[in-house]
């Protein structure tokens, strides 16, 4: 079966091994270490790591389309944010009458914009199952429609990249509008609990962290499953020689659409897990610069390797956390410098370094030369 195939390959086993080990260690240190011990992992750190894992999943999703399909999406933040909003709406409904105005149905921001009743698209989000389906459906549908249009008319390369950017930019502006009913610039925040667990307890935090870890594992396996399947090879074929692939009888646009939608859904899941951990979702997640940054993580980790994407995402965001703390005035220099140096000196990213150690010729499909962009 295509989903189990990755489990037999060593790279995936290693990845999953490391991931689960990390989950266990962190949880253990958090639960069983005394507060004052040097090894204690505070719930602050746990949530932080949880956030990194969300970004990692997002990066994997981007690497799937960019690395293996050659579609440079500069708009994946949109899918991430949509998933986030779906989750956010659920969390908002969970607040119930505990809001400042104590309105049992309307979220606070609607109350003070004098909305009389809930907009139709907010219905159903009080039910977890519905919300969770939406987490997949909302980004999925957007990707389906957008991808259908774009791939059908064979928009490729930089043109595709730019319109994905236009997509997320338009959505950002739209969500900024208070009339949209998503809280405008403030977005959705001040969440109380999820599935009945209080978001403020360390237990829930740890739970979310672990959930994210598992989601990342599953997402990784799915992506691996796709890229190691025949379909994966076909998409690599599309990436490097689209026309040729057509002459072999493959419907390139459908391949692209399928992979694009899967990736969008993964991004959505990442967003959904991100929101309860950082405690706010607002339109800035749609900002094109964020989407570009995601691509940078992937490139930095190493394109078309999946695990590279994970490394990149975690590394960059960890660096961000550290630098914004220890050198608040200069961290942008460090980060910017990092991007420049890596792209110039490590064309294959960090994964490239690791691969050097592996045997020279590898069956790992890496981009022939920049076909995209």
């Amino acid at each position, binding site marked *: 079966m295509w989903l189990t195939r990755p489990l037999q390959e060593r790279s995936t086993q290693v990845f999953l091994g490391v991931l689960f080990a990390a989950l266990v260690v962190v949880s253990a240190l958090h639960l069983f270490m005394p507060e004052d011990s040097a090894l204690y992992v505070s719930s602050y750190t746990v949530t932080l790591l949880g956030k990194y894992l969300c970004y990692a999943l997002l990066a994997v999703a981007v690497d799937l389309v960019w690395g293996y399909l050659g579609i440079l999406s500069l708009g994946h933040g949109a899918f991430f944010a949509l998933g986030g909003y779906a989750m956010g709406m659920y969390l908002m409904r969970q607040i119930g009458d505990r809001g400042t105005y104590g309105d049992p149905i309307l979220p606070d921001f609607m109350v003070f914009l004098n909305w009389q009743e809930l907009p139709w698209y907010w219905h159903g989000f009080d039910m977890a199952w519905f919300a969770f389906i939406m987490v997949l459906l909302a980004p999925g549908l957007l990707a389906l429609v957008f991808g259908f249009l774009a791939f059908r008319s064979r928009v490729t390369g930089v*043109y595709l990249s730019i319109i994905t950017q236009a997509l997320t930019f338009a959505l950002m*502006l739209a969500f900024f509008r208070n009339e949209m009913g998503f809280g405008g610039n403030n977005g959705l925040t001040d969440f109380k609990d999820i599935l009945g667990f209080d978001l403020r307890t360390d237990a829930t935090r740890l739970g979310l962290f672990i959930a994210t870890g598992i989601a990342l594992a599953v997402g990784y396996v799915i992506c691996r499953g796709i890229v190691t399947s025949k379909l994966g090879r076909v998409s690599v074929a599309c990436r490097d020689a689209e026309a040729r692939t057509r002459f072999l009888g493959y419907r390139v646009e459908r391949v692209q659409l399928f992979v694009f939608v899967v990736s969008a859904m993964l991004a959505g899941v990442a967003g959904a897990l991100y929101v309860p951990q950082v405690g706010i979702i607002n339109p800035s997640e749609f900002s094109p610069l964020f989407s570009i940054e995601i691509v940078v993580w992937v490139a930095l980790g190493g394109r078309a390797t999946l695990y590279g994407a994970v490394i990149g995402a975690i590394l960059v965001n960890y660096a961000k956390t550290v630098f914004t703390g220890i050198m608040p005035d200069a961290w942008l220099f460090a980060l910017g410098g990092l991007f420049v140096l890596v792209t110039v000196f490590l064309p294959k990213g960090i994964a490239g370094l690791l691969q050097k150690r592996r045997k020279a010729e590898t069956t790992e499909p890496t981009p022939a030369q920049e076909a995209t962009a």
Partner: protein
Amino acid sequence: MGITGSLSRLLLVCLLLWPAMATAQVDDSEAQQLLTALAESSFAEKKTVVNRIAGSGDERARTWLEAFAANKLARIESTGQFVIVLSNRGRNWDVESATTGESLGEISRRDIDTIRVNNSLRNELESILSVIDLKSPDENSRLTAARALKGNVDDGLAQQLPDLIEAETASDVQLALTEALAIYRVEEQGDASAVAVLSGSLNSEARAALQNAARSDDPALAAAANKALESIEQKLKLNRAAETLYFGLSLGSVLVLAAIGLAITFGVMGVINMAHGELIMLGAYTTWGMQQLLPGQPGLALVLSIPAGFLVAALAGIAIERTVIQHLKGRPLETLLATFGVSLILQQLVRTVISPLNRTVITPDWMSGSVMINEALSLTLNRMYVIGFALVVFAGLMLIMRKTRLGLEVRAVTQNRAMARSMGIKATKVDILTFGLGSGVAGLAGVALSQITNVGPNLGQNYIIDSFMVVVFGGVGNLWGTLLAGLSLGTINQLLEPWAGAVLAKILVLVFIILFIQKRPRGLFPQKGRAAEG
């Protein structure tokens, strides 16, 4: 608001005593006493004091009143002496005596009490000065004075106006005065006959007067007013259409300016330069720097900063090309990432080296304000210059790309690098020059933008995305495409804005771009060449 009765008295004084006034001077005690009154009375009372000062016929009255209007008439707390502030920046102010005019050097802010003025007073003063100007020999100042009178006429003045109109030689001044009088008659006396004068006038005061008249219960007047208003509305419609078009073009030209440099670096060389916005920013900061170097002559500084901005940005661009981009040959995508890093660095560099705050860039007089086509349609000057500038830059680029050796080589290299090499073209040199050119043009855009928007660290970010949209919409690697795309997007946006609102308009434009690319996957002007395949 109308001018108080005292003003017309003053006007009489002016008219009668004008020749004498020039020499008259009240003795210092009275001057001191007048100014003290001005300093100590409330805003309401100040009006009368102002009129007394104006009426005093003292030759210094005008200086005092002007200083007062400019918030530069002050009193020294310790000595009680009245001064006129020459420079009011920083903690120590440079002042001179209001009565004797001798310089008193720098005095600490703590010790200076400026005599406060507010809008209505300033308004009052303007009218007074304008009334005085009605007699000035210079026609233009008479005209502005006359225009200022519209809606500001009161009973006393109204009696004087007919004679003034008689005496007036210049026709347009005459017209303005007649209208001013007519407005007064319609408003105060509900005089239907005066309506005729106003029909077709595009002056907002006139329209306001008519609108009020239309609401009046005198049917004759109301009817006449309505009729007049209709004819005005007709004219206004046309003017608004013209206005919207102008707005569209000027927004478009801004987009073109911002994008045209990218059309070269990205379109022709295939470098996805995320630092493009920051190059624009550099251009803008150069303008600011120039104005710092040449204090007092912003105009000259602005002109000089056109070559300077070009050079600075071009050099910065070349530096980027040498240090980063040349290592990424044939990996256009990587350039996106590296230049993204560069843009972060440049932004923070500006924040730390210069300041995170926006910088003031002064608009020279010959660029500020607007040319009045008629009283309803006036085109803002700075934007007009920007439109012109955009076209000039575009034409220049076209020349370079079409007519010069460089242009030829550039096209050769972009078509087929290896071939061009073998024909003895130094590809690296061409790269440097091309990228320098594109960056330089970005710098020029910055110089222009400094006249329209913030000069701050975020300047670039606000334009980078739009720039890419324009280039792609126009068709990568095609300058004409960029021009057309920029202008059309700008116009579409402005056409939508009135009914969709600013935000929705922008969203609609983006959606339009997305759908358009579906129809024409290679932009307005598809280009067959490397960069497009990229």
